[in-house]
């Protein structure tokens, strides 16, 4: 993969940077690092996807066919961890690396060498995580939320997972420090905070959330580690600890984490919808305030993940109302996107299709989220496939669709080549169809009571599970089409003009040629 990209950048420019593999190992260029983040997250997406295929293959029919229960549990656990920490988060950091400096008119990220380091930590962490399948006892199998007592009992795989989370957390914190500093200190003259593109705003707020909660995650996994090996009893009831305490600390991290994965997606969609509607974003400042409110609210709703763990009614009511309150700023955003499209001169290229698909499906996921927030209903659907359907609607058709939209939107700027619009449309419609085939039926399974994280199920669930598995296989294969499309774009794509989208107004389209030169904005542009 490195070779493919080296080729693309290599023959276009005469820059004096090392070539070959060392260029990628030692690079401090934000564009190179962004590219590496994106390829890394795609590789992890394939690994996590393989695990998902394994899970769905086992669930294709009732009974145990392919995966023994122990291995099935490892698959579900690692699928979650890899997709969250290996695929979605690094992909957004990749976007930030490529786009933030170009969109604010900065020459590079603030701390270029730290940027290199925060990327190269990722393959180390990923190796530990994936490698844990091959240690005695296998990978962690207690779910991606690694609740004790399962996580205090597992074998070497759990230790590898803990170290891997430490390393990934360190990488994220360094990345966030870099992004915050770049955005606050390195904007081009004239670009005030309220003139920044929405994508930059959402990433600024996301980066603050990351430095707020990632250290707490590091703390809680450290407590697990000392409980496991050094005789502490943070979560061990016999020693005076409390396993429910783990859930509180974990979700204090975990709920902001889900917004960390969706706010940059909001940012990407907020760039694409105005471009293809050929209108400025409706209600820009309300978008900024809505994003900030979502971020603040996300820190006081964590216990809605724990309604059945034992909590006073007052606590349940507080967390229920606080959670439902998040629907207000989110509703403001959906309203603004819709109002941006209203009477716009819309065209439906692939980025726009994915952005509109995002709005449709994310709203479904948002509504099922409000339903899950209602305590009596949540007690009913807790740990069922209804919850699985809910968070895949916000993470796959939310975060992932926005990532696809962003790749299609910016790939002409990154590679200097246009992607195949025909293949792009195929990718969208196949993804749309198979995604809904996979996950829509899981709402019904959950309401009928099918529990999550179990490799076998009652016969009454057989039909919907078969549909869901077929959908999942289709969705997985469709993503290979995306891989082909990207490689085809890099190798054979038509030459892209400086701005192939006539509604685009941000700096990378108005000031930089396609592909963006290796060093851009060494003299900052003047923003009026």
């Amino acid at each position: 993969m490195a070779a493919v990209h080296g080729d693309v950048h290599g023959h276009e420019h005469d820059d004096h940077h090392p070539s070959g593999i060392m260029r990628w190992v030692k690079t401090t260029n934000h564009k190179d690092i962004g590219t590496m983040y994106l390829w890394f997250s795609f590789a992890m997406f394939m690994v996590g996807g393989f695990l998902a295929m394994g899970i769905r293959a086992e669930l294709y029919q009732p009974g145990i066919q392919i995966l023994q229960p122990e291995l099935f549990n490892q698959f579900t656990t690692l699928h979650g961890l890899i997709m969250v920490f290996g695929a979605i988060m690094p992909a957004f950091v990749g976007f930030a690396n490529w786009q933030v400096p170009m969109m604010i008119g900065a020459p590079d990220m603030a701390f270029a060498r730290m940027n290199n380091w925060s990327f190269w930590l990722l393959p180390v962490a990923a190796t530990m995580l994936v490698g844990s399948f091959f240690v005695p006892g296998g990978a962690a199998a207690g779910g991606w939320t690694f609740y004790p007592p399962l996580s205090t009992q597992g074998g070497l795989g759990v230790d590898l997972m803990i170290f891997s989370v430490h390393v990934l957390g360190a990488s994220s914190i360094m990345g966030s420090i870099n992004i915050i500093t770049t955005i606050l200190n390195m904007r081009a003259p004239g670009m005030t905070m309220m003139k920044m593109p929405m994508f930059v705003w959402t990433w600024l707020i996301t980066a603050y959330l990351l430095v707020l909660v990632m250290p707490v995650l590091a703390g809680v996994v450290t407590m697990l580690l000392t409980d496991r090996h050094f005789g502490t009893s943070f979560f061990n009831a016999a020693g005076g600890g409390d396993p429910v305490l783990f859930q509180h600390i974990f979700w204090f991290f975990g709920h902001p984490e889900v917004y960390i994965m969706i706010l940059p997606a909001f940012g990407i969609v907020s760039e694409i919808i105005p471009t293809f509607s050929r209108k400025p974003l409706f209600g820009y400042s309300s978008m900024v305030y809505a994003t900030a409110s979502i971020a603040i609210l996300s820190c006081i709703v964590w216990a809605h993940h724990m309604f059945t763990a034992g909590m006073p009614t007052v606590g349940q009511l507080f967390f229920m109302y606080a959670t439902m309150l998040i629907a207000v700023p989110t509703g403001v955003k959906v309203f603004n996107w819709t109002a941006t499209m209203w009477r716009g001169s819309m065209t439906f290229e692939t980025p726009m299709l994915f952005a509109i698909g995002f709005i449709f499906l994310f709203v479904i996921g948002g509504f099922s989220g409000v339903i899950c927030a209602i305590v009596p209903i949540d007690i009913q659907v807790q740990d069922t496939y209804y919850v699985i359907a809910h968070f895949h609607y916000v993470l796959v058709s939310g975060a992932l669709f926005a990532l696809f939209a962003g790749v299609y939107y910016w790939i002409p700027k990154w590679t200097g080549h246009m992607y195949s619009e025909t293949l792009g449309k195929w990718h969208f419609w196949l993804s749309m169809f198979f995604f809904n085939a996979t996950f829509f039926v899981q709402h019904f399974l959950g309401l009928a009571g099918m529990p999550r994280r179990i490799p076998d199920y009652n016969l009454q669930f057989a039909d919907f599970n078969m549909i869901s598995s077929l959908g999942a296989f289709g969705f997985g294969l469709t993503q290979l089409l995306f891989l082909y499309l990207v490689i085809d774009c890099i190798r054979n794509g038509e030459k892209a003009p400086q701005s192939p989208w006539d509604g685009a107004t941000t700096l990378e389209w108005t000031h930089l040629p396609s592909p963006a030169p290796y060093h851009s904005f060494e003299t900052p542009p003047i923003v009026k």
Partner: protein
Amino acid sequence: MVTNLSKANVVMMKKLLVFTLIMFVFGYALVPFYEKFCEVTGINNLLKPDVLVKENWVDEKRWITVEFDANTRGLPWQFKPLQTSARIHPGEAISVMYEITNDSDREINGQAIPSYSPRFLDKHLKKFECFCFTKQVLKPYETRQMPVQFVIEPGLPPEINTVTISYTFFELPGSGSVATK
């Protein structure tokens, strides 16, 4: 200009690193905070003696069956109640004896953790004396009898006729050698 910028960047990085460190400590600070919160709000006080409310009365028209259960987890002890159940009136104080025996040749520290069924029984159960309030240290092959004294308040919902009080003994760190893992 350039040096000013990189100085400003480093200042920013230092601030954010300090913030990161504060949040890491905050994660640990949640532990005592959580314990204090549970103590103040009385959510998790299963291991502390209760004070008898003065205007306590006995509902002599009503009977409740209390079942006693005892378990051990990971330590070589025998643990059983001397009676498996009792019939009492709400509001009536009762004392029940439990017996533990250390079957091994080492000294072991154990801690009993209570568990109730139905779960909300803890709101209506007042314990004045319990072996679970402190750790129990048993010498090799020692046997000990210990009481639990409690009242089930008349406020227990009328549809509840049977409740279960269960204790599980766990081994504490700091026991004699050859600790089980």
